[in-house]
Every structure is written in structure tokens, then in C-alpha cells.
């Protein structure tokens, strides 16, 4: 598991990339990734290299959403594999995030 964050779009976009198992062990790193960046308007969580997602990862996504402004937040979750997409679908997270 590793979390990488890169700024794009003139520093207004934050791309957070999670590799491997996205579970509770990523908690601190994931949080650091978005808390350290300011002036970000749009968040992209790239799960292209994430193999698995558990309920605490769903919790972390909700925390990010809260941080990014709740209902006014702009967060996309991208490159999900089928398993990850299924977990997001069961929880109906497409109602809260843009899932691509």
C-alpha cells in the first residue's frame, strides 16, 4: 500500500493515487495527502493500482468529501477495477462521488 499526491491544473487539482490494498493502514497517509494541500478545488482519487477497498476506505473517502466541502465538493474516483467498482456500487457511492 502506498499513497501519492500530486498537484495539477495550476495547483487547483489534487490527484491522490492509492496503490495496493486501500484499507485502514492507509488512513494516516491518505489524510496527510489532502490535508497538506491548500487552495485545491477538485480532487481526483486514482484507484488504478488499488486492488481492494474495505469499509474503512469508504470511510476515508467520506472524510475527504467532508474536507472538500461536503455537498459542494468536487471529487472524482477514477480507474477503478471491477472489484473496487462493485464495492463502490454496493454502497451507492456514485450518489456522492463522480465515479469514472
Amino acid at each position, binding site marked *: 500500500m502506498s499513497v501519492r499526491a500530486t498537484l495539477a491544473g495550476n495547483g487547483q487539482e489534487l490527484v491522490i493515487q492509492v496503490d495496493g490494498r486501500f484499507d485502514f493502514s492507509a488512513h494516516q497517509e491518505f489524510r496527510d495527502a489532502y490535508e497538506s494541500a491548500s487552495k485545491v478545488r477538485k480532487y481526483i482519487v486514482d484507484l488504478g493500482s488499488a486492488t481492494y477497498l474495505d*469499509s*474503512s476506505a*469508504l*470511510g*476515508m473517502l*467520506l*472524510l475527504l468529501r*467532508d474536507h472538500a466541502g461536503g*455537498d459542494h465538493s468536487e471529487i472524482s474516483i477514477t480507474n477503478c477495477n471491477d472489484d473496487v467498482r462493485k464495492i463502490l456500487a*454496493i*454502497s*451507492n*457511492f456514485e*450518489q*456522492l462521488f463522480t465515479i469514472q
Partner: protein
Amino acid sequence: MTAYKVLIADDNSVDRKVLSRVVRNQGNDVIEATNGFEAVDIFTEHRPDIVLMDVMMPGLNGKEATRQIKSIAEEDFIPVIFLTSLSDAQSLADCLESGGDDFLTKPYNHVVLQAKIDSYHRMSEMHRTLLNQRDEIARVNRHMLQEQRVAKAVYDNVAHAGCLTSPNIRYELSPLAVFNGDVLLAARKPGGGMHVLLGDFTGHGLPAAIGAMPMADIFYGMTAKGFGLREVLREINQKLKSILPVGFFCCAAAVDLAPDRQAASVWMGGVPDCYLLRNDGEMIETLSSRHLPLGVMSADKFNDQMTEFPMANGDRLFLWSDGIIEARNSDGEMFGQERLLNVVRDSAHASDVYDDIQRAVDKFVDGSEQDDDTTLIEVVMADALREEKESGVTKAGISQGPRDWSMEYRLEASTLKSFNPVPLMNHIMMEVPGLRAIGGQLYTVVAELFSNAFEHGVLGLQSSMKQSPDGFMEYYRQREKRVAELEEGFVRINMHHTGVGDSGTLTLTLEDSGDGFDYKRHNAGEANGNHYSGRGIPLIESICDSIEYRGKGNEVSVVIQWPLEQAT
């Protein structure tokens, strides 16, 4: 610097005196022993911090004395440093093997001597700290386990107060910790039927159990008061949203079993697909989550939409948390939805499915350590559920509670649009112990009378519409439209109760702003089943002692005497 208590054991008095002086001059307290036996006795009495021990002594030699001292010291760390004039490697190694911690060779180097005493003192301090911490941890752990046992007893009383033991339910709940991240709740509705809820909190143990407590309280409390499952879910969602930190939530599947309508409604948020199996069919119907888990959305955005489907007696509903699907075998492979579906598909009969699933999952994991709770519940539709069995009302309790009282409740159009007064009415009546015993029937009466007054009276809907399936749909379409457009009208409810000893009389009167209906034939005893069936009147008649329409038919008054005299 604190003074250390140093025991010096040496049979050679010159050597002993010299060493004593050096050690004392360095600021330590010294006790002397002239042989091994004395060393052991003095140690027992004075408990020195450190022992300097000559190896060769008459009687009890240094090695044997050390063995005894170490055994007396038990788990305390008492460093023993051997004093020796030997210098060959083997002799020195022997000293350490016999239980000594170090050695000093004569003649002594003062600087090294003090450094060693200091060093061993630090070490025994560390040892003492370690022991204290170990004892503290053990104490705290015992305390915590005790607290958890008590908390679990409280939790079990709250969470399992319902009717999970009903014959139409089979379930399995396997706890990972003392507490469980999964919650199973089942309660009978006052009007017959049942609410069932399966919840899976994020995480396990204490955080999950804390959320489960108010959840169970709301579930049982509101169900007993006659609230619908939607209202119950709404309240639970709001409660969890307000008490759980962001990122914690509860995936849930909730079922409203209505045997009188032979139907069930489900609400699913964040749980895996569940299956409905017909008693007489091969088809597996899949139910999927349509909502976000409980505790995620704010009250105004919460979606309480339920999916209703017919369910005949013997039809079975299977619900589970993700634990079953994510159960892993020794290779770390998950059981998965597909395997689950295959088990269900391969079962000979719907009634075998529960056992088949359990067997298949057990065989698959084959004793591997699991990292999630596995919860499974089978709910069967049964006619017996219609008869609500509210027992526990004792003779002594029956004459207590409110006896003589009345109240009037008038609801105007703006209130009628969105508020259902039946649970509240029911709640007030349930304060009378004698009425509690007939809570189910009473709820039905109030619900029927109110919906007659509201739908046929205030909204002006014709009950005859409901006689064909198309009309039924149309009726509810019209109802929705008229509720949205409703601007004026009222329903007035009057409740009047008198009690004598262990019996009583309840009179319910409902008046509405509608046009009424031609009730004269009914009052004259010419009840025509067809004509009145839409108004649920036969149902009411079977429970009430009298039923009387007044005015232009927009006012109805029923009298209920308790205890009921009808044969059961």
C-alpha cells in the same frame, strides 16, 4: 545520588574490609557477610540492591549461595557480581553459568567497580519498571474484560430484546471480538407482522457496539409504538449521522413483513445483493442495495424509498452482511457472490438453502482466521405472524395506569399532508395496561378509521376504485395527487376511556371534513359486504362492540370493551 544497599560476601576478612571501604566511600550502604550461609540470611533480611560475592567460600560456596539468593528474589532482578582472583576464561564463564550476572577480578579497579554498580543498578531499575508495567497492564486488562462483560450484558439486553427467536427466523451471528460489528434486530409490529434489520457497522468492537445501542433502542421503541419502517429508518439515520464521526456508518438491510397483505418491503443501503426464494418456484429473485448506508446522509437528503414485493407464506428472504462474501480460505481467496449464488441455485429446495450456505462457507474457510463478522438471516413469511402475541400483562398491573381520561386531537390540512397521527394515538392508548393486551387489534382499528376519514373523507377518494388491480394503482396515484394539492380539510379524533377494576371501555370518535356516505342501511343492520369492504368495516366490526355512523356519514364512533370477550 541515592545510596545503594550493597551486600559483600567474602570469607577473607582483609579483602572484605578493603572492598567495603571502597564501596562505602563511593556513597553506598554496605552489609557484610563472612560466608555463603550468612550471605543468604542477610539477603533475606535486608534485601540489598546488589550482591558482590566471593566464589570460593567454606561451607556454602558463592555459586550455591547465588542460586539460593536468585530463588529467594523470585522475579525481582538482584544482580550478583562474582569476586575472583581467577582469570582464565573458563573459570570466568563458569561464574556466569552458575547464575551470576558479572565478575570482578582481584585486585579491584575502583573506577570499574563503581561503573558496574551503577550500571547494574540502572538495569534493576529498568527491570522493576518493566514488572510494574506488566502488572499494570494485566490489571487494566482484567478490568477491561470485566467491563466488557458487563457492557456486553447491557448490549445484549438492548440489542436482542426483540423476536429473533420467532419460528420464522433463523440466523447466525458470529462475533469477532467481545462485541460485534454486525447487528440483527427483529420486532413484532403492534398490528401484526414484523420489522427486521441487519446492520454492519464500519469496524468492530466498541465503536460498532456504541452505534448499535441507540439503533436498537430506536428500532424497538418506534416499532412498538406503531411507526412504519420508513420512519424508523429515518430516525436511525439521523441519530447515527449525529453521533458517529465522519467516515463511520452502518450498512443495513431492513425488511417490513406484512403477512396480512402477503407482502414485504425492503430498504437496502450498502449491503451485498440478497435473495428471495419462492416456496414453489425455482427462480431466485435478487434484491440490490439502492441507498447509501445509514449515518451518511443528512436528514433532508436521506432516501427512505422502499421496494415492495409480494411474499406468500413459505417464501423466504435471505440477508447477509459482507462477511459471508468476504470469508477467506487458507489461500486468502474470497468466498464471493458467485459461489454464494451457486449454492443457492444448487439447493434442492428453498428450505435447504440456509443449511447449505452455512455448510458451504464452513467448508470453504476450513478454520482459517476470519477478519470480518459473518452474519446470515433467513426470514420466512408465515401467516402465524398476523396474530400478535403481546403477553406479560399481569392481573396486578392491569388496574394501574390511566383509567378515566379523554383527549381530542384535531389535524388540519397542512398537518395531514405529511403527518401520520396513528402511532401517537396508539402510544397514548398503550399507556393503559388493559389496552396493551389488545394493542394489535386496536392499532388496526385506529389505522382503518383514520385512513377512512382521511382518504375517503378529506381526500374524497372512492373506495370502490380499489376493487380492480388497475383501480388499485389508480387509487394510489390519485391519493398522491390529492395529498399534494390538499389545501383545506380536517380530521378530528376524540378518545375517551373509563376503567373499572380489571375492565374498561374505550370510545373512539373520528370526524372528517368530507361529504360522508350513505350509512343508513349499515346502521339498520343491512351491512352489505361488497359495498362496505373498501372501508375495512367488517374488520372493525369484529373487534368493536359497537360502531355507529352519524351526521351525513362523516362522523364515526366505535366502542371497545376490554378484556375482549371473543373466543380465540
